[in-house]
């Protein structure tokens, strides 16, 4: 079955939208840098660039071969007489793929940026203690295997997308902008990394109480939030067109929903922290803003603006509360809030598709033009997708990174953490002309 063809104007619109996506990568890199210590700022920016390069390279090498696209050759198994499409069957190195503005070529273009975004998320959990070599190796595993396999199931016409056709569960698992394959996958990897690395030195007292280690530059964080919004407008819109068959005219609705979700989530976080601490918290409000974008991704093309506001408010509240829960109750040191922002909010966004989305009668997430379907059972398809993320993706990414830790330790040695990753791994700091304050946060 050939991949669906796109009209020329739609292709041009898609190219423009996809070119916005690197802004999300840049924004996330700035947020992670700003939320870290000043003596690791250059390391974080360099790590972000390396993640982009490694993710793109590995995805080009073998990622797209596993992922494929709707209607392209794939391996299937028959279960009770029904085909389960489980992995793509493309040649490596994008061989034989015409990069000419077709839907599949645009999907490759979008995916090279998306996989970088997914691989960048765990950096937020590993701030100030994750070695560069381990970051690159972990990124290669994510971009070469974990991401393509799951993304095939959702965006390549795989078995999750086929749940509607095979079992009558609505339109199958629907995720227009990558809440699952980008955000939750990245967020769960962040949780695995945070557990493997352990907390930063001095983060917890001997009694187990967390110490505040504030980020070094709130301006970078806020600038990152604005850039991330631009990137998300492209990501959600291009994803909806390429992976669910949305019409170009729906870009207006998607842009409005995406912006409203971010705004309401940011305001919810500001309000909650104002009530908790007496004044709004900068980093939690920034986290809330991004969590609104994450929560909007799955359903952005299929909800009314008022529902986007509701999804954003819940996403922002969930993130604000879960950041505290992870830090205080679970002892997980996640300086960038990556787990709460991307995993928790992403899971809520996926569930929101089943609760709020008014899907059109045809959603083009599987090969050909599927018969018209209703929304009955859509929530169950979303639950199956969430169960797959928790039951397959999380153990896989944890196991891969744990195995990697044996051959390439993730955590920098204690001396490196005391010096700061800039000096220890790069030999120079990000701000050489400034005298930074003494090490009041790190135990000697």
């Amino acid at each position: 079955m050939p991949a669906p063809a796109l009209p020329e104007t739609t292709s041009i619109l898609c190219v423009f939208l996809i070119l916005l996506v690197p802004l999300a990568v840049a924004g996330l890199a700035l947020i992670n840098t700003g939320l870290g210590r000043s003596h690791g700022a250059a390391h974080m920016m360099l790590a972000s660039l390396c993640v982009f390069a490694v993710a793109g390279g590995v995805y080009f090498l073998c990622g797209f071969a596993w992922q494929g696209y709707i209607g392209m050759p794939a391996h299937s198994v028959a279960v009770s007489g029904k085909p389960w499409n489980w992995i793509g069957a493309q040649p490596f190195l994008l061989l034989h793929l015409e990069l000419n503005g077709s839907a599949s070529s645009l999907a490759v273009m979008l995916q090279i940026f998306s996989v970088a975004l997914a691989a960048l998320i765990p950096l937020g959990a590993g701030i100030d203690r994750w070695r560069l070599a381990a970051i690159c190796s972990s990124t290669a595993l994510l971009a070469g295997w974990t991401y393509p396999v799951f993304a095939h199931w959702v965006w390549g016409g795989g078995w999750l997308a086929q749940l509607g056709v095979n079992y009558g569960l609505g339109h199958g698992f629907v995720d227009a902008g990558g809440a699952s394959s980008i955000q939750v996958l990245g967020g769960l990897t962040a949780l695995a990394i945070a557990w493997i690395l352990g907390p930063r030195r001095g983060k917890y007292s001997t009694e187990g109480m967390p110490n505040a280690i504030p980020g070094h530059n709130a301006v970078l964080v806020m600038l990152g939030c604005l850039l991330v919004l631009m990137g998300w407008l492209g990501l959600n819109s291009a994803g909806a067109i390429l992976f669910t068959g949305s019409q170009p005219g729906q870009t207006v609705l998607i842009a409005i929903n995406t912006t409203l979700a971010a705004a309401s989530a940011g305001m919810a976080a500001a309000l909650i922290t104002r009530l908790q601490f007496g004044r709004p918290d900068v980093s939690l409000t920034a986290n809330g803003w991004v969590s609104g974008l994450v929560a909007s991704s799955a359903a952005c093309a299929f909800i009314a603006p008022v529902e986007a506001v509701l999804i954003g408010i819940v996403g922002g509240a969930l993130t604000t509360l879960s950041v505290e829960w992870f830090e205080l109750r679970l002892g997980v040191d996640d300086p960038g809030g990556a787990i709460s922002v991307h995993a928790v909010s992403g899971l809520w966004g996926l569930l929101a598709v089943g609760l709020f989305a008014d899907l059109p009668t045809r959603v083009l997430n599987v090969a050909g033009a599927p018969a018209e379907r209703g929304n009955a059972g859509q929530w169950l398809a979303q639950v199956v997708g969430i169960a797959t993320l928790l039951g397959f993706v999380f153990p896989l990414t944890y196991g891969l990174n744990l195995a990697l830790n044996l051959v390439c330790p993730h955590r920098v040695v204690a001396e490196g953490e005391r010096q700061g990753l800039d000096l220890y791994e790069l030999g120079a700091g990000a701000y050489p002309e400034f005298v930074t304050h003494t090490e009041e946060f790190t135990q000697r």
Partner: protein
Amino acid sequence: MKLVGFFLLLAGWAIVLAALGVIGSGVPLTAFVLSGTGVEILGLALVIRSHLVRRHEDGA
């Protein structure tokens, strides 16, 4: 405890897959999918607990 937790995560997913493959549709499918997800949540709780215990044993 951590291994048991990860085993439950995988087992829960297997229940969901088996429900789709064997039952196919209707109320029993819903019940088994939700049960499988419940088993996963139990597994996740165990994995979280195992990390908490390890942290206390490490003294911080």
